[in-house]
């Protein structure tokens, strides 16, 4: 078993390298096509949000229906502080993250006293309330007319105005985000969170401070979302409250679920599939039905979503993990299985039959 573990670790490291190479090389493959690059950037931004949510849902077991609110907090904090208060975008990003974490803390303390669907409801309510603020707090957010003229982010004084450098910047954030999430999952904290999933009483009786960990994950996911929001604001330079309402929150939820919450990669995979599916349908549907508008895309999107989840209830990463195990571990697993059976079924009488 030990050797099996090591083997897969080795393979995984190798996979990481290949992945990193693809990631870095992708822009050159698409040869400066800014459309593809912006698609990738958008995937990256969504991935950041949904990675945080994956931690929250998959490991802390909490469904959030209001994540876009944190995305919005990041975006508006950055927008306001850079455009009106003249802050540097980096500082503004950090401030947004801190604010999001603070809000998550304040909201989380009472909210995490709630259970199950009440929690989903509370996050939904939080989303609605934040949306109202974005909408009505016109002095700061520009209200429904939107907030435009957000300055770009700068590195060493150079504004990142084109897609290529922004792509790398976002990638860096995503990789760091996934890496951080992965480390947490594989630690004492991650284990405790999964334990909460299994049985809250038991986890708590073993010394796991349930509220603390849930709250920490909530705050962490808020930070992820807020960072993504800040980056978005500097990238598109125009934001409006509709981007941060309930519907986007639901889209984030969809991404997390198609990606699967069993792996920290779920967020990235889900975001990629979600965006690509939409773009692909945009290209394919008109070929099938020349006169169709977007409604067909919506219908197909809905159908695909349903079919996908029926056949892959653990999301794409779940399927990938399964396939991976089948492919690489089949023989090893089988050996282990038979051993397990033999040892489970303790022999007492018919020892000679063994």
């Amino acid at each position, binding site marked *: 078993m030990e050797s099996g573990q090591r083997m897969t670790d080795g393979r995984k490291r190798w996979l990481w390298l290949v992945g990193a190479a693809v990631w870095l090389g992708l822009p050159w493959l698409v040869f400066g096509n800014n459309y593809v690059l912006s698609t990738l950037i958008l995937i990256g931004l969504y991935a950041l949000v949904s990675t945080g949510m994956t931690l929250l*849902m998959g490991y802390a077991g909490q*469904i959030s229906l209001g994540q876009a609110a944190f995305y919005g907090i990041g975006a508006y904090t950055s927008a306001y502080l850079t455009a009106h208060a003249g802050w540097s975008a980096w500082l503004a990003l950090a401030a947004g993250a801190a604010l999001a974490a603070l809000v998550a803390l304040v909201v989380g303390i*009472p*909210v995490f*006293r*709630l*259970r199950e*669907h*009440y929690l*989903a*409801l*509370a996050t*939904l*309510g*939080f989303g*609605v*309330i934040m949306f*109202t*603020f974005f*909408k*009505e707090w016109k002095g700061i957010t520009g209200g429904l007319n939107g907030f435009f003229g957000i300055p770009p982010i700068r590195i060493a004084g150079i504004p990142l105005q084109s897609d290529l450098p922004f792509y790398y910047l976002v990638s860096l954030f995503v990789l760091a985000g996934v890496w951080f999430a992965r480390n947490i999952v594989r630690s004492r904290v991650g284990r405790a969170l999964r334990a909460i999933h299994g049985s809250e*009483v038991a986890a708590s009786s073993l010394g796991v401070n349930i509220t603390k960990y849930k709250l920490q994950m909530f705050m962490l996911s808020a930070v992820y979302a807020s960072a993504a929001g800040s980056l978005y604001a500097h990238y598109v330079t125009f934001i409006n409250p509709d981007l941060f309402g*309930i519907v986007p929150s*639901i889209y984030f*939820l*969809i991404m*997390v*679920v*198609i990606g699967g*919450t069993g792996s920290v990669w779920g967020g990235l995979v889900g975001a990629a599939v979600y965006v690509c599916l939409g773009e692909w349908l945009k290209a394919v549907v008109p070929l099938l039905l020349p006169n169709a508008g977007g*409604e*067909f*895309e*919506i*219908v197909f*999107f*809905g*159908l*695909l*979503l*349903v079919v996908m*989840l*029926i056949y892959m*209830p653990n*999301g794409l990463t779940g399927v990938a993990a399964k396939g991976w195990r089948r492919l690489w571990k089949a023989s090893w697993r089988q050996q282990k299985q038979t051993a397990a059976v033999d040892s489970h079924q303790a022999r007492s009488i018919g020892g000679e039959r063994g």
Partner: protein
Amino acid sequence: MEAWSQFVQLLFSGLTVGSIYALVALGFVITYSVTGILNLAQGDFAMLGALLCMTFVNSGMPFALAIGLSIAAVMAIGALFERLAIQPARRSSVAVLIIITIGVSFVFRGLALLVWGTDPYALRPFSGHEALHLFGAVIQWQSIWAVIISVISFLALHLFLNRTSIGKAVTACVINPFAARLMGINIRKMSLGAMAVSAGLGALAGIVIAPISGASYDMGMMIGLKAFIAAVVGGLTNAPAAIAGAFLVGLLESFAEGYLSSGYKEAISFGLLLLVLFFMPNGLFAKMTGKRV
């Protein structure tokens, strides 16, 4: 006098809206109590019901027949939905099932857009256009219909769940599906029936509201969301509480809008709801859940 009539007006506004939420919320409760699924396409049943009914009426069908037919059609759609989308995914997690229902609601909405386009449609009220004047407030007959229908539906459902053996079996299904099967309860049939009935209730809600606010392809989302809130506030498995929740949401909205600010109305009513939940973390109408270690 002024204040009094405003109060009555707000009260009735709240009751009208609340009764619509209530009908849809009942659908949530039924589906949830049998299958454990939060069906976020519930609001779209209302949309389908309203638009179908409108189409039938416009094709010259008698009003009552059109209502019956559209409810039946939506029930069939609900049953189909259960068979094709829910049944195959029975074992999935809550989040996955929620997203499946969202996917289905996309499909419903997209198809409705194709069939009926973006225009809002009108449906005639059940009984005349005149309004009732009460304590200086104006109340439409349709609002009274809405309240009556939701109360009747609720009573029927309540009796069914609490007074019949099938009702108990329905509850058993979600508490412990494994044990329910061991008792010989056919979970699949129950779940099919539940979805059909909730779809029917949703359709009814749509037909009741259409004369008041019109019907269009995207009306389901908002109704669904509000009803979801009502159902959760009521505890999800508890029909009377869901009804109370629905009226509470309706009234909160109405009073927040009337006395405070319409822009902040949603935030205010949500805020109040959350505040209440924080003090009663298990819902407003918590019953003993029967869980211990």
